[in-house]
């Protein structure tokens, strides 16, 4: 394969299925995760958590715990008040201290913490801490929380409404007034979340001599965490150094800010001994960074006589939980980046209300908000298709943004880079054998079976930008990502980046790019992680960005380094620099046949033969480049901006059968076509699709954080929170269309969040297609057996 930006006749690595460099170590159990790290004098932390959803703390007595053998330090809210600021949050100023200071606001909120010589000793000590609570009335329903006289989650706010706004893009009212058809529905997306197989973990080490903090952890974005700790712990940001270990998945759901601050306080109180906290699964499920999207929707679409959707309005009431510390509100803003999906809908309105309740604060989760939004939009498309008796695939086709209209600006302001939506639809329908599938369905229905087919299409916004979240208070534009490429005296290449292994194969991807640029073997390139005190600006994985961002950064560094090396060669041979060319790993000079130098020779010369080095060129064969997405704009007062750089698109075709006796939904067939531009390592792209699809199946059918009316969590183990197993996930048929992005160096689009954008929508479209002959529609996910069965029974009654 060839790419204009790579100086080789054909790539050996980019665009090919490449086995991951990460795997040998992972498969041997040698990769070091945070709980594998042991530091000298290290202590272990355990956290005492609130058993109540809402209460005043009238007193805490830690004296008995402090005298136990092996207990070195205990912290409470008093320490947090003395040393810390409240957490950063979205919306702003809805953060609280890492340990409750006078009020607990959700079950599981930290109340005290112990550092001891072992985790067991620390947990034993928690039992000797006495807390007196004065229970307060909790509020767990966001609509009740908005009523006058509701208990207040954060009393001095005077309200539980964190943010309320209405954004209007285009002539919405006129479109509805002139519509041939208007459809309105309500939907409920229940709270779910990330649940990576490794929970959060951290080791904090305070140096009482230098007043510097060193942190190791299972951290998705080391630089963001370092800034957060500097802020809450009131430490200059250049005195916090964070190094992330390889981590066992994240999916946005490794919050842990409180644990980081608590261990830092404990280390300070323990005279600087390192303090480790490993969140256990129950802590994760009850109060970790793994809960997201607790949403109530009302949506309307205006449709013309030909089935074209002319306007979309969505009203969202989003239950954010007790504080904004998990930045879950970003997930309510992100749909603005792809509000109207793949459709040429000319006008839209978004009315959103973020509400505090006495539940765990919501955090990020893969997809960061659009998956519920697209569930709503795709159900609305099917509501229209059923009413107008148009095939759902055809309804989507007539509403698609045409291929010749890219780049295409959607009403909510973002610009889609490229796409071939009808082609992707055709590919999916062909793969599924859609017509035969409908025939099979008709036969099944004739036998009284509840068989349904869902056809859905959505966008995956890729390469996130903070400007997409301006309405919830994010002020930045751009998300810089850097890489340093250096070549040693013997020609070995090292790339330094600011993030750790998380599972997407990014170190392999960086190696592919750099190995192709200098035409060397994959194993000749090593990728290493720098901690935050050394790394160039970096965010790391998140928002379907890193594949595009890190290859662009590495490419920029390679180009810079090659230019420097060209200058060396030019000086050596006394020719203008423009006469020197790097091609297929060799520097040659125009019109000087036989004059050539390898990359290793030039690097070796720079470092070992300063006598030959041209004047004005330093001897370091190294370059750094920090990339940020081009052409981004500051958001306007309606939240409109060029935000996410790429727009991948996909179509899923799903066939399900519902057992009317039990309400169980079984997936019979699952076919998909997607277009995420150039596939840099097709095997890992496929892995992202399959993994994300499984999370989407979980969202559609199984996963739910359940609370009772009093705010007590009813999910405490993985026997309650139903992560799909191999028995629940269908074997998929997949095909790809490739429409390169004109905005990224290699034509790739963000694809890491992937199928979770569409899978819940597609499965629910199929479920509702199956239920249509019964005259009922399920407007709530997950489509658990209880919900489906109840719906069928209500109809019968």
């Amino acid at each position, binding site marked *: 394969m060839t790419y204009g930006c790579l100086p080789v006749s054909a790539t050996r690595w980019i665009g090919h299925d490449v*086995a*991951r460099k*990460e*795997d*040998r170590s*992972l*498969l*041997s*159990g*040698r*990769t*070091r*995760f945070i*709980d*594998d790290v042991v530091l000298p004098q290290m202590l272990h932390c355990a956290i005492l958590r609130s058993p109540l959803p809402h209460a005043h703390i009238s007193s805490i007595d830690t004296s008995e715990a402090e005298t136990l053998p092996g207990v070195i330090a205990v912290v409470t809210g008093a320490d947090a008040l003395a040393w810390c600021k409240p957490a950063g949050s979205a919306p702003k100023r809805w953060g609280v201290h890492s340990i409750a200071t006078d009020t607990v606001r959700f079950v599981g909120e930290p109340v005290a913490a112990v550092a001891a010589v072992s985790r*067991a000793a620390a947990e*034993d000590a928690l039992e000797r801490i006495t807390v007196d609570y004065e229970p307060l009335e909790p509020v767990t329903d966001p609509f009740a929380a908005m009523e006058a006289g509701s208990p207040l989650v954060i009393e001095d706010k005077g309200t539980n409404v964190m943010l309320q706004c209405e954004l209007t893009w285009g002539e919405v009212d006129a479109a509805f007034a002139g519509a041939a058809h208007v459809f309105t529905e309500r939907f409920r997306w229940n709270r779910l979340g*990330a*649940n*990576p*197989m*490794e*929970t959060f973990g951290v080791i904090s080490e305070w140096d009482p001599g230098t007043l510097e903090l060193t942190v190791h952890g299972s951290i998705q974005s080391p630089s963001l965490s370092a800034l957060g700790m500097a802020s809450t712990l009131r430490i200059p940001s250049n005195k916090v150094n964070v190094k992330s270990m*390889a*981590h*066992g*998945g994240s*999916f946005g759901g490794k919050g842990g800010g409180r644990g980081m601050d608590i261990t830092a306080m404990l280390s300070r109180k323990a005279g600087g001994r390192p303090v480790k906290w490993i969140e*256990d*699964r*129950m802590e994760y499920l009850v109060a970790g960074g793994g809960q997201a999207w607790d949403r109530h929707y009302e949506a309307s679409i205006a449709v013309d006589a030909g089935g074209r959707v002319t306007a979309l309005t969505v009203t969202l009431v989003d239950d954010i939980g007790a504080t904004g510390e998990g930045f879950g509100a970003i997930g309510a803003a992100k749909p603005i980046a792809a509000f109207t999906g793949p459709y040429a809908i000319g006008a839209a309105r978004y009315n959103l209300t973020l509400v505090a309740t006495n539940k765990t604060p919501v955090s990020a989760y893969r997809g960061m908000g659009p998956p519920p939004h697209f569930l709503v939009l795709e159900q609305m498309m099917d509501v229209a298709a059923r009413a107008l008796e148009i095939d759902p695939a055809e309804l989507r086709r007539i509403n698609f943004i045409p291929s010749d209209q890219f780049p295409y600006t959607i009403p909510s302001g973002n610009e889609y880079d490229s796409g071939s939506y009808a082609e992707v639809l055709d590919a999916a329908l062909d793969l599924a054998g859609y017509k035969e599938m409908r025939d099979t369905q008709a036969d099944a229905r004739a036998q009284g079976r509840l068989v349904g087919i869902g056809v859905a299409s959505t966008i995956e916004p890729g390469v996130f930008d903070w400007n997409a979240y301006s309405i919830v208070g994010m002020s930045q534009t751009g998300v810089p990502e850097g890489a340093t490429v250096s070549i040693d005296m013997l020609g070995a290449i090292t790339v330094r980046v600011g993030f750790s*292994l*998380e*599972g*997407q*194969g990014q170190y392999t991807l960086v190696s592919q790019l750099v190995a192709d640029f200098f035409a060397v073997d994959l194993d000749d390139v090593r990728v290493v992680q720098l901690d935050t005190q050394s790394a160039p600006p970096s965010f790391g994985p998140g928002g379907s960005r890193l594949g595009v961002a890190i290859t662009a950064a590495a490419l920029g560094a390679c180009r810079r380094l090659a230019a420097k090396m060209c200058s060396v060669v030019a000086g050596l041979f006394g020719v203008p620099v423009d006469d020197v060319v790097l091609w297929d790993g060799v520097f040659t000079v125009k019109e000087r046949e036989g004059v050539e130098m390898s990359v290793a020779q030039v690097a070796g010369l720079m470092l070992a033969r300063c006598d030959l080095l041209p004047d004005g060129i330093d001897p370091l064969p190294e370059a750094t480049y920090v990339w940020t997405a081009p052409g981004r704009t500051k958001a306007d007062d309606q939240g409109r901006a060029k935000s996410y750089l790429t727009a991948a698109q996909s179509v899923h075709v799903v066939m399900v059968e519902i057992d009317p006796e039990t309400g169980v939904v079984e997936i019979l067939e699952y076919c998909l076509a997607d277009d995420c531009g150039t596939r840099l390592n097709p*095997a*890992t792209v*496929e*892995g992202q699709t*399959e*993994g*994300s*699809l*499984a*999370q989407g199946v979980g969202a559609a059918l199984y996963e739910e954080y359940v609370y009772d009316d009093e705010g007590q969590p009813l999910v405490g*183990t*993985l*026997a309650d929170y139903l*992560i799909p*197993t*191999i*028995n629940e*996930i269908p*074997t*998929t048929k997949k095909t790809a269309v490739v429409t390169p992005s004109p905005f990224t160096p290699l034509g790739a689009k963000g694809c890491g969040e992937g199928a979770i954008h569409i899978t819940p929508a597609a499965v629910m479209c199929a479920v509702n297609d199956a239920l249509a002959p019964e005259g009922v529609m399920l407007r709530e996910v997950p489509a658990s057996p209880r919900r489906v069965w109840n719906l069928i029974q209500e109809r019968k009654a």
Partner: protein
Amino acid sequence: MSGELRVRLRVNGTTREALVEPRTTLADLLRNELGLTGTHVGCEHGVCGACTVVVDGRAARSCLMLAVQADGAEVTTIEGLAGADGSLHPIQEAFAQEHGLQCGFCTPGILMALHALLVENPEAGEDEIRDVLGGQLCRCTGYQSIMRSALRAAADVRAAALEVAG
């Protein structure tokens, strides 16, 4: 807690001894006392399967087993799967080739569960593999690549056995 007990067991072919509290799990013994941190702990309540090791030839959740219950047992962990020279076991090789892992945290447990199955039943097919993997949670891969890897591993393990026999 007082009253530590002496545990003596064979781990990856080597006899090991440790003093443990009665409440210490086998997972904690392996990780914290014996330094074998390739066994990962994902839930500590027996659902996720990340901590699976082989005890006397059978897959076991090391988070649900007390260390003292393993006294006298023969235990194999992920560190014992590859050859002494670091050469990957055919199961590990198959997962590398078929992209059967992403973050790799759940992977040691999956490999050990499969290893126990294929030692016990080298002819195991998709149904038997699915049955065993039904007890192992993975949040990254979506399982399809794990099944591809496992089927390849089973075939490769059988081929390797034939080669030895032949």
